[in-house]
């Protein structure tokens, strides 16, 4: 298949993720959207590894996975803590800090 299609897919995924972060209000959903963006990047990396004929992109994908996992651990820790304190995971409820 044309590698360009994978790039389009990754761009679309990335855009969906970014839009989700900006539009959704639930912290967990926002967080999942961020993970989606990371995975879109991974797809781009792997595709580019194919098109450029180098392995760097595949290696990068591995590292991104690790980082994404670490991010999940940290992120969920924070969200869970807040959830336990406030019984809500909405970003809007977290509004003590106002401009």
């Amino acid at each position: 298949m044309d590698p360009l299609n994978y790039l389009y897919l990754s761009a679309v995924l990335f855009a969906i993720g970014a839009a989700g972060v900006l539009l959704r209000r639930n912290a967990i959903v926002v967080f999942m959207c961020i993970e989606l963006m990371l995975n879109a990047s991974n797809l781009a990396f792997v595709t580019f590894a194919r098109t450029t004929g180098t392995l760097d992109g595949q290696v990068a994908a591995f590292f991104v996975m690790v980082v994404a996992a670490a991010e999940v651990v940290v992120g969920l820790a924070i969200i869970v803590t807040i959830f336990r304190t406030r019984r809500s995971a909405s970003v809007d409820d977290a509004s003590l800090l106002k401009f």
Partner: protein
Amino acid sequence: MEYLPIVALGAIALGFAVFSVVAGALSGPARYNRAKVDAYECGIEPTPQPVGGGRFPVKYYLTAMTFIIFDIEIVFMYPWAVHFDALGLAGLAAMALFIALICVAYAYEWRRGGLDWD
């Protein structure tokens, strides 16, 4: 083309599963009874639950996180194992270091009771 076999198998399995779900809904009787569609709690009056069941022990979160860490470790181990012979002693040393580092976190979690259930 390379993936045709699993696509085919997946399609068959999916067709079967969907058929089963639909058939199950159509073939059986449908006699409404309020108690039947309530949550089943061994006959006790069910406690109303939100979808998602409200709150549950943080412990599961810890397990999930630990799993992710080890799963990632495995992700790194597989390619290493497959190409082990090519990597030689350097590969061994690197993986030993990697495992040692994971074990540090592992030891921390263990000592802090992260692996204990009661």
